């Protein structure tokens, strides 16, 4: 890293080396059986330079020689975008928990045991259920060094478990599933098992819904697939600057329900997206995006911030390599005060959506969301009476998040979103045969 940086400094005005080295072990179960043990080792090194006021970039997986990397970066800089910002000097970074040595130490044999327990307890509940499951541990070292003096490196461990069950009856397929991930070693499979069994129990009977506007409760999974794609684009500083975000010019405006608060927090304890600094060396912080329904901030990386005349929020994310982009780390929706039970109890007729497919397929910039209800339950007179099929929901975050009710318990989904259940009073539901 140092060698590449000092070589680069001789030819260009500013240089930055971002590197990620990773080791990952996965135990993979298919159809209730242990199928494969899988290990990955990789190093990614990305060189970003500024030469004659233009930016250039080259990446390699650690096997190429650094002279070639520098030549490629200089070549691309001829056509690179003119920029006017500086890489950050060494900053003062918050203490953020991203590493648990127990993850590093857990043996593959123990991961196999956890997987077996997960699969056998879930499939034991519904004997004809076939489960795929994965237990994954990974260790990462992330380094950012630049010509302005930043030398930052930290370790991250990630432990993830997931199970998906499939039950086929004639031409009917039922899918259930749960997963969790954290920088910390999981306490065990109990929570996952409980959640999947609850899904199986609720889906045991079937119910029909007809095409109409209904109140809908979105569970954390459904929120992740329905609302988060349009919301993430809307708060992306780059899209705001371009005018492609519908929230451009709406800072300080009441756009959503007063009960809704959303923030991005890169410092949350053991969050999968947590880190002391972003992928450009900017210190991490918690950024409020929606404060009691009011649009309060957007997410920026260095370049976008320079264009928009503001400061980076520490959201430069590189997804393991390439150019930084304004990216959320851990999105968190504040809890409300209504229990799931009373949300459902207050519904005469409605729907609880657990899993959606195709949620991110609408025109995200317009705020539209929609999809097929892969797993969802019909509510009648305050009770979840059975699973619906051949049913779609459609809506728009700018319309349907103006009036909501928030659940009193938040939970993590996929390690990147923490949210309570959300009740929307009027969602358009379309169903087959009506």
């Amino acid at each position, binding site marked *: 890293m140092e060698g590449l940086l000092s070589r680069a400094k001789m030819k260009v005005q500013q240089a930055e080396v971002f590197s990620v080295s990773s080791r990952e072990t996965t135990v993979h179960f*298919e*159809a209730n*059986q*242990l*199928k*494969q*043990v*899988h*290990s990955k*080792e*990789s190093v990614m090194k990305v060189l970003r330079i500024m030469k004659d006021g233009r930016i*250039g*970039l*080259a*990446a390699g*997986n*650690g*096997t*190429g020689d650094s002279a*070639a*990397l520098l030549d490629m*970066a200089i070549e*691309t800089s*001829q*056509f690179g*975008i003119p920029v006017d910002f500086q890489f950050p000097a060494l900053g003062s970074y918050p203490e953020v928990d991203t590493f648990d040595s127990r993850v590093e130490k857990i043996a*593959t044999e123990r991961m*196999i045991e956890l997987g077996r327990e997960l699969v056998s307890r879930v499939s034991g509940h519904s004997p004809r259920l*076939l489960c795929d499951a994965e237990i994954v541990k990974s260790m990462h070292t992330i380094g950012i060094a630049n010509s302005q003096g930043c030398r930052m490196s930290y370790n991250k461990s990630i432990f993830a478990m997931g199970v998906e069950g*499939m039950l086929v009856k*004639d*031409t*009917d*397929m039922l899918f259930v599933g749960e997963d969790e991930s954290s920088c910390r070693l999981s306490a065990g499979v109990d929570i996952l098992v409980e959640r999947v069994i609850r899904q199986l129990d609720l889906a045991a009977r079937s119910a029909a819904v007809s095409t109409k506007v209904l109140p809908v409760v979105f569970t954390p999974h459904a929120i992740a697939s329905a609302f988060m794609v349009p919301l993430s684009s809307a708060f992306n500083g*780059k899209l705001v600057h*371009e*005018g*492609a*975000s*519908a929230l451009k010019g709406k800072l300080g405006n009441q756009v959503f329900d007063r009960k809704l608060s959303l923030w991005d927090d890169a410092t949350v304890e053991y969050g999968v997206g947590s880190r002391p600094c972003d992928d450009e060396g900017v210190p991490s912080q918690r950024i409020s995006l929606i404060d009691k329904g009011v649009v309060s901030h957007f997410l920026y990386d260095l370049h976008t911030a320079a264009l928009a005349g503001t400061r980076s929020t520490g959201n430069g994310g590189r997804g393991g*390599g390439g150019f930084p982009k304004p990216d959320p780390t851990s999105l968190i929706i504040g809890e409300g005060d209504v229990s799931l039970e009373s949300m459902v109890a207050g519904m005469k007729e409605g729907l609880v959506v657990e899993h959606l*497919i*195709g949620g991110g*397929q609408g*025109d995200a*910039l*317009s705020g*539209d969301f*929609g*999809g*097929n209800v*892969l797993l969802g339950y019909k509510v009648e007179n305050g009770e979840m009476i059975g699973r619906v*099929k051949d049913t*779609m*929901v*459609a809506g728009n975050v700018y319309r349907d998040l103006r009036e909501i009710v928030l659940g009193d318990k938040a939970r993590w989904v996929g390690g990147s979103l923490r949210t309570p259940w959300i009740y929307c009073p009027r969602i358009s539901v*379309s*169903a*087959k*045969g009506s």
Partner: protein
Amino acid sequence: MREQIADALKGHEADYIEIHFEQSQSTGMVYQGNRLEEIGRTSVRGGNVRALARGSWGFASFDGFDGLREKAALAVMEARLAGGGDAWFSPAGAVVDKVSWSPRKYASSVMLASKKQLLDNYNDIILSSPGIQSSAINYRDVQRTTIFANSDGSYIEQEKPDLSLRIAAIASGAGKVRQAGLSLGSRGDFTEIEGLDDQVRDVARRAEALLYAPQLKGGEYTVVLDPVLAGVFTHEAFGHLSESDFVYQNKELRQLMTLGRRFGDKGLNIVDDATIPGLRGSYKYDDEGTPGAKTYLIHEGILVGRLHSRETASRMGEAPTGNARAINYLFPPIVRMTNTFIEPGGSSFADMLSEIKEGVYVKDWYGGMTSLEMFTFSSGEAYMVRNGKVEELLSSLVLTGNVFTTLANIDAIGDDLEMNQGGGCGKGGQSPLPVSNGSPHIRIQHCLVGGK
């Protein structure tokens, strides 16, 4: 290299071992509005070893080409640790081959300045169109060579270039933001993305028109799909269900997918074909060394075949079809599609429309997804159809269906097959895999459409 590999494969306690190597150089460009935001190059070298022992698999991927023997030993150790499964592999003869591929104009040899000039031009067309707020262009070309070797004695070198381009226009006005897009791809042939000025102009025009397009009321409609969207439909609605790794260990699903089952009208023929020259999903050998093939999935409405790896083929007592693919050396091969399409039928587009009293004509795509039984796909363009006439533009639609009823509800198949090379397929965390799909215009009765 070949000797080194042969040596590393010897003397392990495994039933089968294979090695993949890959060397790739790629160039990516991203435009956002009037700026070329990203221009970068990536160079990667790495490989993996996959081993089958005691009925289970071990897999180890690594950077560089060193320490091959130890990596093979690691994969074998992992397989033995997993142990006790019942994985097996269809036997195959040894294949030694070297496959090169020469596009008319190799994207990776085109000067960076020329690539930029072409994309600048498309970007200017969009940005100078009325009502346009911004643009987004994603370009990527990859030059990739792979080596495959296994303990059966196979040694195959293949050149596998790829190119993808996505162009989107973003319009704003009337308090709304709408986008329209165009997705293209090729097997590394740069000429496929040249001369698109008119199409790009059309994308910008469409984005602007969408600002004023009303939303459809949700419900069941008679829907006509254009070849692009019908291709996505074919891929999502049926293609994934024909991938045998979803099916082979599931007794109920195997029964459901018994060859001979009727899925559609006798005019319906669905094919997966890796052998068509020049298409994005084409290749000579898959990532297990099996030759790519043309496989009928549905013939005259009846299920007649499915896609296999060597493992799923052996487990189902059928022949491998050469559909085991990995997106790169970090992943083991899994069963994937190649070029998947509905064969042309006899209806003309005009006839298809003329019988519709009220329906929807949908074109182009944003995306598609499947859970095997249920699938969804979204249109880039949608129009109301009344009394056989295509009328006003509607805002983008999400359509959904159930594979067991929707294929049977196709009641007209056009005579105008077109292949779509844009986008890519995702499965099991491996995305985007180069594939293509296609279809003539098709008409579906009682298709569920989401809406207000």
